[in-house]
């Protein structure tokens, strides 16, 4: 198993564990908020902010796992009809994803500096503690995407070897 795969397995485990924990916390805070608001007419203002913070962390930690398993929605126009083109497009898409990841990481860190001076109204926590999830997610996705790219490149070269009559193994 390559080092990249080991790193990605660790990232995936951490992301899944954190997203699961955050979902549980998030659900509990929402249930408490709604219950207290509707039954006792005593809304928990902090739960509103807290739930939004947990939600944003959940979204950006879940995205790398989805990227690794290619679970993001995409439209497959060609299907299996043009297999060679499919392999090439996979590689092109992986390279295009890097462009957006660059924006997420570099400009995410830029925005982090701005968000450091802003606060949540009820919890009075710096917004940068939530915004940091965006560059972090981009960083993890960078590793996940590199693994995908290597897999796609291997599939592409194996395919061309097969078509040229070469031996893959």
């Amino acid at each position, binding site marked *: 198993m390559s080092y990249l795969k080991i790193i990605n397995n660790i990232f995936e485990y951490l992301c899944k564990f954190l997203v699961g924990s955050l979902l549980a916390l998030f659900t509990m805070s929402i249930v408490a908020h709604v219950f207290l608001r509707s039954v006792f007419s005593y809304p928990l203002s902090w739960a509103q902010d807290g739930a939004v913070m947990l939600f944003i962390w*959940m979204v950006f930690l879940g995205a790398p796992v989805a990227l690794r398993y290619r679970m993001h929605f*995409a439209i497959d*126009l*060609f299907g299996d009809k043009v297999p060679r083109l499919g392999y090439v*497009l996979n590689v*092109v*898409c992986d390279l295009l994803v890097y462009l*957006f990841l660059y924006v997420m990481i570099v*400009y995410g860190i830029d925005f982090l500096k701005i*968000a450091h001076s802003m606060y949540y109204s009820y919890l009075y926590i710096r917004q940068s503690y939530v915004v940091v999830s965006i560059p972090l997610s981009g960083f993890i996705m960078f590793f996940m995407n590199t693994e995908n790219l290597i897999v796609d490149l291997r599939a592409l070269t194996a395919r061309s070897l097969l078509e040229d009559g070469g031996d893959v193994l």
Partner: protein
Amino acid sequence: MNDTALMLLLGVFFITIFLKLPICFALGLASVSTMLYLGIPLANIINIMYASLDSYPFLAVPLFMLVGSLMNGGGITDRLMNVSSAWVGHIRGGLGHVNVGGCQPTCRFSGVKVSRALPSFSGLSHTSFSSSRFLVARPFHRSGCFRFASSMTSFLASRIAADSPR
């Protein structure tokens, strides 16, 4: 926004979509290219990403998906589909009818009017293809066309339920 920027936005979006790039990244790249063209600082894109998620009503989305998966795991959606299939499945165009019928109960017990589409998307349309007992023996669940049709009928069902009097 001038015409070139609009063309760039739509052009990059559709080209990257056709290249099989995931839609989230296609939207992102289209926005990035347009912002670069218009000279808008790219940190704004992160600001918009963050600000669009930073809304309380948006929290309903993961909760609806959670409810959908709980209903799938608990078997409620299977039973809803079976009931709906027994009632209206025999009529011509059964797929749509069963979807509409199956969505009615979920639309009824969700309180928010605008969010009625979500349980049908997350729960029922998934179950209708994972079990797909009411469909004939052909492997319909592999067909993207039928998956799309199911989602659309679920969405229509939610709209019908939203507009119908209580």
